[in-house]
């Protein structure tokens, strides 16, 4: 079907110029605010929106801040644990859903999709009421449980997309060559779907480390994560320190995106941006 795509379109000269101008304006709109945010993280003035010279002070302050170090540690623990749980469980359930038919599959499929669809504030309310009712102590554990509850679904979707392109005859070939089921899984299936699993894990990690609303509702004393810390700082007033922290977090998420794209590309599969 190559050559019949919209790329062949030949608009009027002014139409094309207008379209290009709109495209440039669109990307400016997306990038200007965050670029300005980064620039002002190097501004020497504490209170003003006027440039008063270059400084790295705010980054220095950031690295010396104990509370931020604790928040970063909590964020990494929460993201690490919830990613581990959701990657293992999500991959398992993806294998089951792609390979088998069973009674109640449609209902289970719906249940698996719901956490992706439901607005985060509703999910936050649900989990908070559940923890209050079961008298679970709010803290790192309750946050991990909550993050895994939505991340299992995201991992399952990504891994299933990968499995959909999986050539089952490769497994049959391995078994013809006397590999047992475990060997087949370990040596053939797992390496082939690994890019999907890693992609799902990175997505889960990103979603967990970025989540604010659900964490906010299910956190307790001493379990402040980075987004909660930023929010707390924001409520006290705008400071260049927040700019510095935001810029660092932005760099972090960009690295995660690049990693996930590289991993998914490396597997020879098509790029799947969720």
């Amino acid at each position, binding site marked *: 079907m190559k050559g019949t*795509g919209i790329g062949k379109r030949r608009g009027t000269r002014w139409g094309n110029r207008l379209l290009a101008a709109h495209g440039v304006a669109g990307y400016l709109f997306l990038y200007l605010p965050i670029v300005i945010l980064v620039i002002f993280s190097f501004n020497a003035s504490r209170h003003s929106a006027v440039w008063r010279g270059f400084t790295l002070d705010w980054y220095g302050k950031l690295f010396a801040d104990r509370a931020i170090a604790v928040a970063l540690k909590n964020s990494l623990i929460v993201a690490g644990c919830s990613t581990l749980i959701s990657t293992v469980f999500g991959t398992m359930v993806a294998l089951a859903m792609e390979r088998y038919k069973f009674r109640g599959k449609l209902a289970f499929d719906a249940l698996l999709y719901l956490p992706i669809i439901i607005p985060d504030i509703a999910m936050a309310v649900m989990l908070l009421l559940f923890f209050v009712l079961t008298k679970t102590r709010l803290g790192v554990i309750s946050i991990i449980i909550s993050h895994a509850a939505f991340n299992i679904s995201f991992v399952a979707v990504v891994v299933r997309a990968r499995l959909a392109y999986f050539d089952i005859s490769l497994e049959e070939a391995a078994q013809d060559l006397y590999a047992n089921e475990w060997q087949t899984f370990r040596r053939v299936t797992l390496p082939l779907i690994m890019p999907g699993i890693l992609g799902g894990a990175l997505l889960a990690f990103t979603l967990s480390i970025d989540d604010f609303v659900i964490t906010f509702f299910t956190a307790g004393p001493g379990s402040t994560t980075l987004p909660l810390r*930023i929010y707390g700082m924001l409520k006290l007033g705008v400071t260049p320190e927040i700019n510095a922290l935001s810029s660092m977090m932005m760099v972090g998420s960009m690295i995660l995106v690049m990693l996930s794209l590289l991993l998914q590309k490396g597997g020879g599969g098509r790029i799947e941006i969720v």
Partner: protein
Amino acid sequence: MATQPRSRRESWRLMFLIFPSLFWLLVFFLIPLVIVFAISFGQRGTYGGVVWDLTLENYARFFDPLYLRIFGRTVMIALTTTVICLLTGYPLAYFIATRPPRWRNGLILLLMIPFWTNFLVRTYAWLLLLRDAGLINTFWTGGLHNVLVWVAAAVPLPIWDPLLQATSVHLPLFGTSGAIIVGLVYAWLPDMVLPCYAAIERLDYSLVEAAQDLYANRFKSFTRVILPLTMPGVVAGSVLVFIPSLGAYVTPDLLGGAKSVMIGNVVYAQFMSARDHPFGAAISFVLMTVMLIGTLIYFRAGRE
């Protein structure tokens, strides 16, 4: 291909694969969902607990003028956000789709990078621009005002007076519905562009050429051929923008003031300050229902 388990061994394996996720989602998702539903029919206790006294009062409270107004504003903000995203996102998707193939992936990636940035950070970026002591107002009452003073001194004309007056006070940007809409458009624009792009890129352009051979002008070939064929992308994008806008909490909290409260803030208040859990549960349940309807529309659009 998915098959029925063929042996007892395979049945056991299926159960082993499903059990952990099933358990997790049942206990930490489905049961909480049922709890919210149950509590939404309860009553607020004197000290903030829940009294199990069946009532529809929490749902009836929606019709209180105060909440009706907030709900109306929320829907208006979400709709406006969706329309702006559509009017700017569709041409942007069209722009990307009409670039040479080797450019397209890069442009899509460029679209995704802000999207993957922390939501709070992205909202904060707009707070920096829009607040009273922010960048836009600093320019307005500082730089621009000073230039005007200088010009007015050099060329004394009466036309400068209203401009001088206007730039002497800051613009009311922060704490308005407008600020919330800007923040939401910024947050969800990529959600509109991606499905529109997917639909436009897939479009078989020979159909447009056929329309033009049949003397359709540019406008007609757009409204009669391109737009209908890319409608699934438009619907999908609109739902993807509308749903999170309706349930927004962070954006109105940071960019809207006390006067521009959205339904998400009301839910939040029921748990963090008012301690009226049953009412909060009822609002969340209504929100969820609206989202589910939206999602059904989305899947319908995807199937077509």
